[in-house]
């Protein structure tokens, strides 16, 4: 109890420190930080911006869960960006292939399936390489991000480019019937429901199923898991596939709810922000979703920075960086212990050591 209170106190202090430091930066640009924060708060609490936050949070939540699921099994998925892009490509491909032959709702379902499959394949490549040739998944997922982005650019600059467009490199727009419906009369699309449902499902899977339990055992000690007879390889691969599918779904939600067409730069570092959201929340599904909303809110606050204070919108990345810095750097009982007791290094000769499968 006391420990929890102390932890909360530290967290509050970390957030406060981030705000103070960002205020100091703002002062150097001749802007009053109190005004900046007041404007940000006002803009975030009015209805439209709140909607913007939810629109941005939906794909971020899904992409952050895509980090949290493999993390439970001890895998590092740095490839959210690529998997989100692949999901968007999958959804756009369905849009172009079906070309309105199916009713809108059926198109939506097929788009979701295609996006999840595309994301899962992208993450699955890294998973398979890890299990077969023992190439580390953090490296391959990172590299595959660029391949996915280049693939998207290739498609929208040539084969998928809208012939009736204004010459901009982009696909045509998604037909109105196949878009994610809006929530009531707002600008918020139902992608946020998809994200919330996914969060609840992952939470329940982790908590109540043997799959969730086994993933944690594998993440805790793969060797012990193997000796206990768990199918370690299959569990690791399943974690990557589920993660990739979630990120792919995030790409579809962003495509069919907000962007409505493929265009360069549409993902805007979503995968990396989501990676940080998952780490911020220590990979616990509900907290991860909350962290994704927080980071989405900070990103949207950047618009207020530009409109109300005349600072560049991207400057809000400083605030985001400082918040993450303060929260990650505040330390915890666990990280302290790790510092004192480094993991024992294997005494096997280097030639025989390889990444555990």
């Amino acid at each position, binding site marked *: 109890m006391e420990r929890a209170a102390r932890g909360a106190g530290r967290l509050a202090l970390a957030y406060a420190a981030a705000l103070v430091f960002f205020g100091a930066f703002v002062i150097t640009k001749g802007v009053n930080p109190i005004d900046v924060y007041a404007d940000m708060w006002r803009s975030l609490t009015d209805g439209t911006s709140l909607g913007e936050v939810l629109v941005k949070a939906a794909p971020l939540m899904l992409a952050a869960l895509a980090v949290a699921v493999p*993390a439970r099994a001890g895998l*590092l998925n740095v490839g959210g960006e690529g998997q989100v892009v692949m999901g968007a490509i999958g959804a756009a491909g369905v849009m172009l292939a079906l070309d309105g032959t199916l009713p809108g709702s059926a198109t939506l379902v097929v788009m979701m399936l295609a996006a999840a499959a595309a994301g899962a394949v992208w993450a699955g490549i890294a998973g398979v390489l890890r299990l077969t040739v023992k190439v580390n998944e953090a490296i*391959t997922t990172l*590299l595959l991000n*660029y391949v996915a982005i280049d693939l998207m650019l290739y498609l929208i*600059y040539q084969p998928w480019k809208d012939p009736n467009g204004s010459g901009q490199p982009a696909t045509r727009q998604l037909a109105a019937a196949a878009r994610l419906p809006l929530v009531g009369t707002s600008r918020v699309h139902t992608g946020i429901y998809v994200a919330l449902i996914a969060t609840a499902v992952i939470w329940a899977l982790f908590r109540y199923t043997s799959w969730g339990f086994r993933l944690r055992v594998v993440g805790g*000690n793969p060797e012990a898991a193997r000796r206990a007879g768990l199918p370690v390889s299959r569990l690791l691969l399943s974690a990557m596939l589920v993660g990739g599918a979630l990120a792919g779904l995030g790409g579809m939600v962003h495509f069919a709810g907000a962007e409505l067409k493929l265009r360069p730069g549409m993902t805007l570092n979503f995968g990396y922000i989501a990676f940080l959201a998952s780490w911020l929340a*220590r990979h616990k599904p509900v907290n991860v979703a909350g962290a994704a909303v927080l980071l989405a809110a900070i990103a949207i606050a950047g618009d207020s920075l530009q409109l109300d204070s005349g600072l560049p919108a991207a400057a809000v990345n400083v605030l985001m960086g400082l918040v993450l810095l303060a929260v990650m750097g505040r330390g915890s009982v666990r990280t302290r212990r790790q510092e004192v007791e480094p993991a024992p*290094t294997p005494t096997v000769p280097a030639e025989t050591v390889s990444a555990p499968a």
Partner: protein
Amino acid sequence: MDLLLQVLIGAVRGGTSILYAALGETISERAGVINLGTEGCMLVGALAGYAATATSGDPWVGVLGGAAAGGALALIHAVLVLQRGANQLATGLVVLFLGLGLTSLFGAAFVGESINAFTPIAIPGLSSIPWLGDILFNHDPLTYLSFAVGPAMWWLLYRSRWGLLVRAAGEREEVLAAYGHSPLRVRYLAVVAGGALAGIGGAQLSTAYANAWFENMTAGRGFIAVALVIFAAWHPLRAMGGAYLFGAALALSPALQARGVAINQFALDAIPYVVTIGVLVVLGRKRMHAAPEGLRKVFEMSPSS
């Protein structure tokens, strides 16, 4: 033939900024710390280099400014990783976003400002050698400097005492400690030096390559550098070759397009990454052996809860 020449010139011109960053990342990773924020270090280096050149009128002051800014940002990464035990990949990304934000906040004032940039200097005699002269000896001073930095880094890492300390910090820190050295201090030095080199790479981009500052001008070169270090199996000379390979890939498609060859640039852009993955698959185990022991611990994440 003309095409090949153009691509080779472009490889050296475009590869140099990546080369500096990749060499910096090599030192850092050799000491056991990966910095995904290399992109951020390059970006602050590009702005600081540009700003320092604009205010002082001397591009060499800009180089110092770029190195200082890149090193300072890497220092944040080092403190979090080495002092607070934070996850390296996550803090690296934090550093990236800090770099994006800071350069956006302070860079707006320098957009469109003109500077006294580095100019290409043709080396008398050497530059008139056919082909080789154009490819190697008609560049800005920072490019000439980079020719020396690669081999110097090799010498430092493999032949000097300092390099032995860095490699020991990345492989077996307990050995370093047993001999009375502080692994912590060596790592700090390596990470900050890595950031400083990335900063110089950024400064090369803004004061010698593009001669301009604009938001997010590094456009992923820092990430290329991180990928390159893996591709090069943590070896500085191979990193040099790799940087020029990436530079050539970037130069090839505009050169082809200028000749009316219809080619999609992005198919070419993806090749280096696919090749890197292919190399990892073929040489998978061997390559991962080349990875510093300390780095492998980073990739093998501890249980989450």
